[in-house]
């Protein structure tokens, strides 16, 4: 229960409710405790002596107690619902807050689906468990101890039956539970397996069909599905033994009470009503214990959830602003990489970038070209501090980016990604995402530059995009994301293979449109097509994380072998033929 305990701090603001809820249960419990003994009196005195007045008086007391109990029970439910509701929502908020402030170094380690499950399922479960706990935390011990005391006052001898049977039952039930617990985890794992196969088949159905692997997939599904069935059956079979056993204990205790009670009555040391009260107390104790075991099951199930929550809450906030972090009026945009090296996993992985050096001044555009895995995307991800360099430094306006406030850098650095992400909001909201105060004119202008205006006009600015922009083509999404970056009016603009899904004609048009916009900005264009960058002032050629060539197109054509290879494979023949046709 260590992990659940850690989460209790979120209950602090609501301690009043969290205290009231179990306290009010007291009323309910007291009533339950006194009813059997009053009943015993009614039977032993009232009925035996045929004293109607006595009977009515005691019935009156019972009614009052009952009403008090009802009030207590309802109020307790109310306060515990409130406390656990607020607790859960605070927990959710804290978790989300945490996530949105994590660095990508940490974020990359967590899968989106996992986080969503935590925020919805896990926290909801913990909320319900808290509710349960608040209402049973006092109830169970008070009933058990109270009933025992009441029983002892009636007959210490008969109480021995209870005192012996109860521990015995607890032991048996906990053995059953212990056996069943490992199966909960196995069941969960097995459910995950089934889900994996389904998910894969839903997203890969084209491949399955193309390779005619339907039978194979069905067999694969049947295997995991069968496994799920077997594990569930085994686990549940153990679990379902608990209840009949508990019931058996109740019944056997009843019979024992009857027998020993019968002997006592014969001896005249006990009355019939007492036996009846005893049986009631016994039932109360055992139902309370059953509830306790239910709470324990819920608690241990939620312990897994709590662990997952704590895992996230415990992550280091590794990209925090220093106390004297700078936030200047504006940024000029001079960008410099000084001996920058980088490896993922906090520098412990393989080096992705080695000793990168270059400078870009405002108004300049630098191109970065290289193969898959050459590190070009990683390089630009370091600029808005999505990741921190492992060694060396990145300077903006001659100051190390680690000395700025994070928000300052990100305000002036805009990055348009190859895999664009759009929100399920209107086109307008998406465009103005980086600049809420953008005027309609700015929006239209940005859209024009990115060659997105035409299809935006077709759909309308208030067209609502579906989740992940599925109602747009890949190229349209890329153009929207580029327009968004332009509208945010950055000082440093990074295009990370932004136009890979745009056809060549439009690509060319966009590059022409961009020229005036980029006049006093620093721009980095990452590309795999040479045509996209060959006209730029400076081109970096990246291979295996190292700069293997730097210069203009002409210079690289003379000195950089790798660049030449690329050029020949992509352009040469086409260009020659193009020329020969023109001439």
């Amino acid at each position: 229960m260590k992990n659940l305990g850690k989460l209790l701090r979120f209950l602090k603001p609501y301690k009043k409710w969290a205290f009231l809820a179990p306290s009010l249960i007291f009323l309910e419990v007291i009533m339950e405790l006194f009813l059997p003994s009053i009943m015993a009196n009614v039977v032993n005195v009232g009925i035996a002596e045929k004293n109607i007045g006595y009977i009515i008086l005691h019935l009156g007391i019972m009614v009052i107690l009952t009403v008090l109990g009802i009030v207590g029970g309802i109020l307790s439910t109310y306060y515990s619902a409130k406390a656990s509701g607020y607790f859960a929502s605070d927990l959710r908020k804290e978790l989300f807050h945490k996530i949105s402030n994590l660095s990508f170094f940490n974020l990359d380690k967590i899968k989106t689906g996992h986080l969503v499950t935590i925020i919805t399922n896990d926290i909801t479960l913990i909320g319900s468990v808290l509710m349960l706990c608040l209402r049973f935390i006092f109830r169970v011990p008070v009933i058990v101890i109270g009933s025992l005391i009441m029983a002892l006052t009636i007959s210490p001898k008969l109480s021995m039956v209870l005192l012996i049977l109860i521990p015995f039952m607890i032991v048996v039930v906990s053995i059953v539970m212990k056996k069943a617990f490992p199966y909960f985890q196995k069941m969960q794992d097995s459910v995950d397996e089934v889900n994996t196969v389904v998910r894969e088949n839903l997203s890969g159905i084209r491949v399955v069909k193309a390779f005619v692997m339907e039978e194979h997939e069905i067999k694969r599904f049947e295997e995991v599905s069968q496994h799920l069935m077997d594990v569930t059956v085994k686990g549940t079979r153990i679990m379902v033994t608990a209840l009949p056993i508990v019931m058996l204990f109740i019944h056997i205790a009843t019979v024992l009470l009857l027998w020993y009670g019968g002997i006592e009555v014969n001896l005249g040391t006990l009355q019939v009503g007492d036996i009846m009260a005893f049986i009631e107390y016994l039932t109360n104790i055992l139902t309370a214990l059953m509830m306790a075991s239910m709470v324990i099951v819920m608690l241990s199930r939620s312990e897994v959830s709590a662990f997952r929550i704590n895992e996230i809450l415990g992550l280091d906030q590794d990209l925090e602003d220093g106390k004297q972090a700078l936030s200047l009026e504006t940024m000029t945009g001079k960008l410099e990489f000084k001996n920058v090296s980088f490896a993922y996993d906090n520098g412990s992985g393989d080096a992705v970038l080695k000793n990168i050096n270059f400078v870009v001044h405002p108004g300049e555009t630098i191109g970065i070209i290289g193969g898959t895995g050459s590190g070009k995307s990683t390089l630009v991800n370091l600029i808005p501090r999505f990741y921190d360099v492992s060694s060396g430094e990145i300077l903006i306006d001659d100051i190390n980016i680690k000395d700025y406030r994070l928000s300052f850098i990100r305000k002036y650095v805009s990055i348009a990604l190859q895999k664009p992400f759009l929100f399920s909001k209107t086109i307008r909201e998406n465009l103005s995402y980086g600049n809420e105060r953008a005027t309609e004119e700015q929006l239209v202008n940005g859209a024009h530059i990115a060659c997105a205006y035409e299809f935006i006009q077709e759909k309308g600015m208030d067209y609502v995009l579906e989740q992940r922009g599925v109602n747009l083509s890949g190229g349209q999404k890329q153009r929207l994301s580029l327009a968004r970056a332009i509208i945010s009016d950055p000082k440093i603009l990074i295009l990370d293979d932004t136009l890979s899904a745009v056809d060549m004609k439009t690509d060319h048009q966009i590059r022409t449109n961009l020229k005036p916009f980029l006049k006093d900005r620093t721009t980095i264009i990452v590309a795999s097509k040479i045509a996209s960058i060959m006209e730029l002032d400076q081109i970096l050629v990246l291979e295996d994380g190292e700069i293997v060539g730097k210069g203009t197109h002409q210079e690289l054509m003379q000195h950089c072998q790798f660049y030449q290879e690329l050029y020949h494979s992509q352009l040469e023949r086409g260009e020659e033929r193009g020329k020969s046709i023109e001439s």
Partner: protein
Amino acid sequence: MEKALNPKQTMKRLWGYLKKDRLKLGFVTFFVLFATVASVIAPYLLSVAVDQFVGKEDMKPLLFLCIALVILYLLITFSRWITNYIMVRISEQSMYYLRTDLFQHLEKLDLSFFDQHKKGDLMSRFTNDITIIDDALSEAVIQIISSVLMLVGVTVIMFIMNPFLALATIVTVPIFFWIVVKIGVASGKYFMKQQDNLGKLNGVSEEMMTGMRVIKSYCKEDESVLEFEQYNNALREVSIKAELYSNLVIPANVAVNNIGYVLIIAVGSIMTVFGHATVGNILAFVTYADMFRRPINQLATLYASIQAALAGAERVFEVMDQPIEIVDVKEPISFDHVEGFVSLEHVHFGYTKNKPILKDINLEVSKGESVALVGPTGAGKTTIINLLTRFYDVSDGVIKIDGIDISKVKQKELRKKIGIVLQDTHLFKGTVKENIRYGNKFATELEVIEASKKAQAHQFIHRLPNGYDSIVEEEGSNFSEGERQLIAIARAILADPDILILDEATSNVDTRTELQINQGMKELMNGRTSFVIAHRLSTIRSADTILVLNHGEIIERGNHEQLLAQKGFYYDLYMSQFED
């Protein structure tokens, strides 16, 4: 609460899954019957003991009765346990069949179904809906039988023992029933709202998680926390109410229980004083009152969960009832060996009726010819591929391979002859080797390596810590886009198809690797008819025939030189990359 549209039929169908094992169901029914009857008798025996044997000189009858009671309770315990034991298997087994049937049908469904339905929605039918059905089914059968029996049994025995006390016991039931129903309705309402709000929160958080890079790069962390909070607060308000109402059932239960208790004692003790009842009666009726209310309570909760299960089952059956439109003809023609002549004759197609995508496409491809499809987004390139593989059927016209109408051939046979590398490569959880072998299960280790070498994938696979046995995570998330492409290409090569389709397959691989792949592809395409959709001119240029598509029509065709000479659409497209 979500209501099932056709509860009777859905129930019948679910019952069909349950009744698969009649023998076991028979056992369950028998033991439930026994346990219920025995439980009804036991308190009666108790009351007899209290009234007649306790406090008597002769202890023997009491002893016999106690022993009888112990045996009876042991039998009850055993029957309860055995019913649960068997029932778990029955219900899990029927869930297994249901899941498998659903999955099997899913695998058979047309591609258009997957294009029109959201993945998350289909996913939830496998997870949430089946779980809900399972939860209800595993309990429903036993509980319905035992609850009804219990009600009847307890009523009968109560009236036999003491009609007045029986009436006093039953009087509280309507009140109790009314409360349970009221609370149930309210909590059902709020639970549905809670589910609704949870769903919204789910959507918002998923979107924000996937878009975290964008959120961070525009410094929108605080705004998104605020937005999240809105949904979070809304959820809190309804979930407090949902929890409150659903948990009120317990104190309400306790309250009604105690009122009933007091009532029985009141009536019972006064009647006993006047000699119309016994102390044993009181004891027995206290137990019977409990036994009478419990099944009502169970039936009430059961009603809600059965409703939910039926709604869930309908959603599951909805998928299972989806018609399969693209079916094989009754007497399919068989391909012996595919030469690779492909022709499209007057092919028309639209995904929806009034929006034609392809208009009158005519095409003749000879054996071994490579065809490049070029054109702007939405021109219909991918659609042609979808038709060639019969992922969709033509609206009009005919597609022939080796002169045989492909709609007359078994789909599976057709697809075995065609190899496809798609734009977004899909890898499965498993090893690299298993993924490459996907289209050719019986390929030897050597053949796998051979294919990878041709696809230029061997080099990077070889360098992995576990080589070909390295684990591919779900969706291949532990490989880069380029690596996934290479594996997919190796997979296609190993499948050794007669006709090859490459849908922008190389567009995500860097140019250098692409060049290497092209080499491998050339080798593979040699002698095979192939269709390529690519944005890169280097790929297009090497094709025998280039088809330029625009707005669903072939507007130009010919090889690279011929098309350039035409100075048409292709020429514009081509020149745009190089002019200054």
